[in-house]
């Protein structure tokens, strides 16, 4: 296991409190940045580090920061996206719950780099207790002079606020998040203009994931070059993976990008293998919206190379044989899992969370859910599979925000890789109750 950067102090008792955090080298990045570095130098370090957005899309953070428009006399904002609602993803909660000051420190350093004097942490409504933890941490930071006017005697001032959302998945989309933060209905905005030009209250804004902002702390402390040494290719640094599903040791793991998937699932250092010695069937590698992959394709790419936990390797082969690293919500399924049921559950989620603004997503997600429900009820027909395929194709890429794509991709991937299971359900509705039976019946090997 490589060196931990974000969770290195995870094991220390009382790390939630300011005193313990400070004693263990906390807030050093703020000191270093504010006292010795210019704002451009901090952005340059982040660029050098090759850090990519940890929220799902994987856009280079340094580049995102350098796109920020800087018209004179207009405020700039940094907003932290803590609206972590993707099914299967819980790394940000863990980070904020365990080491709240790391996020606060990252926010101060990042805000300094961007020249933002007001910053917000937009946190998911269900995480109200985490918001309390963060608020306490912010109070401590104010009391010790890390926030407020003239931080460390410099010219730089920063106010940091926590805003709790009202429980909508869509508010994790950056422009919907900004709308919600402004007090409006959380509907995604039509882009352009991008938030870097006109974001919060019409001012230039950067929206970053919790983990991205936390990663700025080790980057400033140790230097961007040092950070870039970890990882593989363009996937630099460490990544928090929320491992869940049928594994022996579910939890949040900090890995060096580039760890082989096989090692991640079966090594005792990480997931510890499939629970109960069962066969390994499939993985959703990056949160519910990324395409599901069957066991053989997640362990090895279509070309036969071992697949690694990195942005490039997981995406190898496009959507035909690959997937995405996404937000790092790693859901492992064993042989007893019904892909159709699982897909219905995901689709139900997207149906429930669609904002209803643009038609393909509003109408299409509900339609797909109803068809899947019908198949599970034992009333499906063979043409339903083609219909599902057609509907997902008509949603993908036609919507305002990526929620439409997120709803379409799992459906497409499930049909692409597990079509026989759909057909079996339709032909033999009784098999729905017993997936294992279906495998035995058909002499199929799930892994």
């Amino acid at each position, binding site marked *: 296991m490589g060196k931990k950067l974000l969770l290195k102090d995870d094991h220390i008792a009382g790390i939630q409190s300011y005193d313990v955090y400070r004693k263990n080298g906390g807030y050093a990045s703020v000191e270093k940045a504010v006292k010795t570095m210019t704002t451009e130098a901090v952005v340059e370090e982040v660029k050098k580090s090759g850090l990519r957005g940890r929220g799902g899309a994987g856009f280079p953070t340094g580049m995102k920061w350098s796109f920020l428009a800087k018209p004179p006399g207009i405020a700039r904002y940094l907003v932290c996206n803590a609206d972590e609602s993707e099914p299967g993803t819980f790394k940000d909660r863990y980070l904020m719950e365990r080491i709240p000051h790391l996020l606060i420190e990252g926010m101060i350093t990042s805000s300094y780099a961007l020249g933002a004097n007001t910053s917000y942490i937009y946190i998911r409504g269900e995480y109200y207790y985490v918001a309390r933890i963060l608020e306490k941490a912010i109070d401590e930071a104010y009391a010790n002079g890390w926030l407020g006017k003239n931080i460390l005697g410099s010219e730089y001032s920063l106010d940091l606020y926590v805003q709790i959302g009202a429980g909508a998945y869509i508010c994790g989309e950056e422009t919907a998040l900004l709308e919600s933060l402004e007090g409006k209905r959380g509907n995604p905005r*039509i882009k352009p203009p991008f938030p870097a030009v006109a974001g919060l209250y019409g001012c230039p804004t950067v929206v970053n994931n919790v983990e991205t902002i936390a990663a700025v702390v080790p980057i400033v402390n140790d230097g961007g070059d040092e950070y870039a040494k970890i990882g593989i290719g363009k996937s630099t640094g460490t990544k928090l993976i929320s491992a869940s599903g049928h594994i022996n040791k579910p939890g949040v793991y900090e890995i060096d990008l580039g760890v082989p998937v096989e090692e991640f699932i079966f090594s005792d250092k990480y997931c510890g293998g499939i629970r109960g010695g069962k066969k390994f069937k499939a993985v959703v590698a990056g949160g519910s919206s990324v395409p599901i992959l069957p066991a053989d394709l997640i362990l090895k790419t279509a070309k036969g190379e071992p697949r690694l936990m990195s942005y490039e390797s997981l995406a190898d082969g496009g959507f035909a044989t690959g997937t995405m690293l996404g937000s790092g919500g790693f859901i492992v399924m064993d042989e007893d899992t019904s892909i159709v049921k699982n897909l219905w559950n995901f689709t139900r989620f997207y149906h429930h969370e669609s*904002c*209803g603004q643009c*038609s*393909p997503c*509003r*109408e299409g997600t509900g*339609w797909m859910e109803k068809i899947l429900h019908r198949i599970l009820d034992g009333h499906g027909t063979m043409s339903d599979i083609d219909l599902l395929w057609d509907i997902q194709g008509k949603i993908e890429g*036609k919507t305002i925000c990526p929620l439409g794509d997120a709803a379409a991709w799992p459906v497409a991937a499930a049909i692409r890789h597990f079509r026989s299971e759909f057909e079996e359900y339709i032909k033999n509705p009784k098999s729905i109750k017993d997936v294992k039976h279906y495998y035995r019946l058909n002499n199929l090997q799930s892994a």
Partner: protein
Amino acid sequence: MAKVTIDGHMIEVPDGTTILQAARMIGGDVVPPAMCYYSKLKTSGGYCRTCLVKVTKGSEKDPRPMPKPVASCRTPVMDGMEVQNKTAPDLLEARAGVVEFLLINHPLDCPICDQAGECSLQDLAYEHGLSRTRYEFSRRTFQKIDIGEKIKLHMTRCILCYRCVKVAEQITDGRVHGVLNRGDVSEISTYISQAVDNDFSGNMIDVCPVGALTDRTFRFKSRVWNVNPVDAHRDCPTCSGRVMLWMKGAEVFRVTARKDEYAEVLDTPDGKPGWICNTCRFDKKETKDWIVDGPSKIDRHSVISQNHYVLQEPAHKPLLNAVQAVPTSWQLENKK
């Protein structure tokens, strides 16, 4: 100025013009359909996705094609941009998909809908939709409500274009209705029924592309194709007073704003949008209230307007000929 090519037609338009506006300047087949965009309302458009177009060349500077179809109503043109609308078969298929999505929860109650005949969704479905539905589940329904004294809201028919919300925001002095809930159960509504009480609220009826918002003084009075539109004006202290009267004989059935070929209100001669007030719309239903300018020019491509249908040779012999083919003696016998 920016040069943009849409389906092979090149036009030079001012910077900041959207693709849809440029297409409307060219006119004809090149114009993508638009259900939610309304040129007279700021920030409208982008929701319905019927105006999607394919950008095959981004601009002169950056000739890469855009990865996804874009909403032409909200995408500004770039110099050297090349756009495909009717000429891209995959795009037409995508549009047909959007139309299908719009229709799956629509009640398709055109035979009893007041909007039938001047309904944008009807036109859109004729041009881009399928002849049968693939949706086999129960459709979403809502209770009809009166959102104001003169306006009926039938949410079941709504396609959530947000136009009425923008009217309330931009033309009236305060918005009291909006979108409640989310996803496929989101609805346009007021918290208190009858709450919409504003002198310009009636324009919400004019902008509604479907039969979700209808004029309570006209509901079920007549089919729109049985009343004749006539341009008229009056000296109105609150609005332009330039309207269209829908008459049968000397009786005025309803009053609406004058509309252009895209079903948007026409500008008045001084260049302002010709919104009309509720007094003109609901209370002046006598011929003597108005000075008639002459018959209105209806050049919309609505399904009821002329020349939309091409009369085709029927496959079977018409019944009339069959009767004529019957021997005369039999006819004569029957007459007795």
